[in-house]
């Protein structure tokens, strides 16, 4: 699997580790957690949620939010948790690989 393709899904799974959240909260958590470095359009996030739900990595249910409103809340499933662990290590490998590539090789002289 191409790592970059799954980044959004990885981020969503990661946000849900701390507990169930609804869609809008997930978007906010990604934005705040990355200190505004990663901005996700809601138009991309929402289909990603449906994708994860379809894969069975997260499940959705209607709950009451903190403001006493009805909200559709997503939570990780055991499969999703396992998937998160695996993909996190894959991501780390990927990042390490890319960094190695971007670092000037030993003996190579920059002109």
């Amino acid at each position, binding site marked *: 699997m191409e790592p970059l393709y799954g980044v959004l899904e990885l981020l969503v799974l990661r946000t849900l580790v701390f507990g169930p959240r*609804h*869609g*809008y909260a997930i978007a906010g958590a990604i934005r705040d957690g990355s200190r505004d470095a990663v901005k996700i*359009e*809601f*138009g*991309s996030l*929402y*289909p990603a*949620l*449906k*994708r994860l739900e*379809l*894969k*069975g990595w997260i499940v*959705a249910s209607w709950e009451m939010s903190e403001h006493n*409103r*009805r*909200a*559709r809340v997503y939570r990780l499933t055991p499969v999703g948790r396992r998937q998160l662990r695996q993909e996190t290590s894959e991501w780390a490998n990927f990042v390490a690989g890319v960094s190695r590539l971007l670092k000037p090789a030993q003996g190579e002289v920059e002109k």
Partner: protein
Amino acid sequence: VTLWKRMTYLLPWRRRAAERDMREELDSIAAMAEPRELGNLTRAAEDARAEWEWAWLEHTGQDVRCALRTLRKSPAFAVTAVLSLALGIGAATSIFGLVNAVLLRTLPVPVPEELVLFGEIAGPGRILSWSVEQFRSMQQNDALAGLCAFRPQVNFSVTWAAEAELSTGQLVSGNCYEVLGLRAHLGRLLTETDDAVSAAHPAAVISYQFWRRHFDADPNVLGRTLDLRGHAVYIIGVTPPEFHGFEPGRAVDITVPISLEPWVLQGRMTANVRWLRLIGRLRSNVSYERAASELAVRWRTVVGPARPGAPTHRFVLLSGAQGLNDLREQFSLPLRWLMAAVGLLLLIACANLASLLLARARVREQELTLRLALGASRGRIVRQLLTESLMLSILGGAGGLALAASGSRAIVSLLSRGRTPILLDVSIDARLLGFTLGITVATTVVFGLWPAIAATRQDLQSRLGATTRTVIGSNRRRAQALLTAQTVFSFVLVIAAGLFARSLTKLYGVDLGLERHQTLIVKVNPGVAGETGGRANQILQELSELLASTPGIRSLTQAMDLPFAGSSYRASIAVAGEPIDSTEVVSFNFVGPRFFETLGIPLIAGRDVQLSDDARSRPVAVISQSLASRYFPGRPPVGRRLQLGTVVVEIVGVAKDVPYAGVRRERELVVYRPYSQDAKTGVPGTYVIRTDLSPAVVAGLVRHSLHELAPAVPVGAMTTLDAQFDGSIATERLLARIAGFFGAMALLLVAIGVYGNLASSVAQRAREFGIRLALGATGRRIGRLILANALLPVSLGIMIGLPLAYSSARIAQGALFDVTSHDPLTYLTSAVVLLLVAVMAAAIPARKAARADAVSALKRV
């Protein structure tokens, strides 16, 4: 798990629940977020739906339902669009079916590409046949794996058991099937041995169709005999079902070896008479070019050096992959014209549809803008419009195929109006289907995608901001441009129709050198009733005498060949005492007394053939005017002698030239001989009768007389010289009819285009007209405005079409008779007709606009 979940979305209630959840969820999130923070939620929902994977299926279903609904809502549009598409595709497919059958199909034999036909070109369009002697000499070469000779299309009167039929047969050299590489369907095919021993054991091969038709596919047919003009021949085999002979379109029933010629063609084909066609198979390691040059050298030694002053002949090697190309040659010109006309018609139909769709896009502008504004993606809308076009294409394509099925047959029967029936396999094959599909898809892309993209190209801002009027304006210009393009092509087709019609009129006005009205032709074949040899001659002779004395019949004669039909016997001749010029071939006709009087051919000098010119008197001949000037330049020919084979004849008359092989062919050199002086010719069974009575009455007379003489013999084919003439210009008549048909179609499509465009533009501009009326314009003025709107693109189209027609009509020159392709009268008439049609089509919407009253027009919008 994933797949299963996806499957559940196919269930309607499951999908409805999901939809509901999604809507509520998005609503709740929208309530939490800042306005505009989330962007296009409709798009997000759409993309989420796409995750369910079945979305494409759903969308297609939706698109199809939606397309059908919108088409149902505007039946006039749907009908005109489907009709013009069906006409275009139907015409193209049926024409292609014909082209496929005549021009493209190869003979059903192994490696047909290796087959080559021999030809000796004796002048423009004249290819000579070969004599048996030449055939044997040409067989000695290193370039070919085999060379065989055949005589296609010979009428065989055969009888078997109690049945009789005039069948079509051919004569082939013994090695023919070996050269072709054919295997028998049943029994075996002819061999060299059959050819050599044919007198002792005459063999014949019958076609699969003949076997099915007359022997009920009986496997015991082998060894049975056919009666061929009083001689028994044995059936030794049946050819494969797909093989119909050497000529596409002409089926052959019976094949016998060329050594049986005396039984079929009365032994007239002596060793040096040219009556055979040659077809060979190249050695696999010899190229076509090498073979052509090697064989040309061989040919030169066979025919001898060219005589000074004689017309130069040359040897050509033609591709034999598709068999004999006579039919191809005869029809390739009309077929090429058909293709061109069909191409234009398709272009017109496409332009027509495109302008209809543009006009529609104009009407739907509001709807589309609204949907874009509500968040539908552009791709989705383009897809829906494309689906709509595709539905039209499918309907049009289906209609087209249905039309093509009957159209092809109609065209084949049109082509068959000539002399011989034509059996063409125009059934729809894979290539044909591919062609139709190609046209359908191409048409969809051309007329569907363009308006769809045009309709969604403008960005939303400007469209919502500006009034829709500017957009309408630019679309209207585009539609008018299409109308102009359509007129350009239509103009070309209308001019073609005019030119061919004029050409046909001229052909009918030609001085034929004979009197073709009130002349009846009756064929009688006693052989059908088993009467052959001397008995048959006696019946025919007595019938002739009986009819000659019948009141109402002005004069009567018999002949082997008739004008316009081409001659069946040609040979080289010489002025008595001079050597034979074998490069020149003249036509022979064997005729009865009063031949020239009966056909109304004027004699320039000398006398007609008389009853006294019989086997006991000295041999005589009448020659044609052009033969006289070729062989006796500047000298009176009457009284001089000609060497015809072994016979020396005295010339007793010179007759005016008549178009023997057809009006448009070169005048032939003809020798007319009394049939009674030629031992090999029996009494010809073709009677020519000049009469004041109606054909039906004469037919009754002939039937009655024949019944008295020989009750068993039926009266054969009956026709008139007029019909014979019509048959001889069948190609021209066909061209005129086809051109007329396409011209009419083009006019019809222009009418549809003008009407469709104006009608929708009138509807669009109702408010504008209302304002104009309110400001004091008269209805008449508005009507004029509409008319001008229609006439502007049409006149522009005529102006652009004029040089196009002028330059492309030059190609038609060869097919025209006595009419220049730049005939000013035709051009003028075509332009006037086109304008008139446009005015008539524009009149209805123009009147509607002129009648509108200001108040209701303003209120409506």
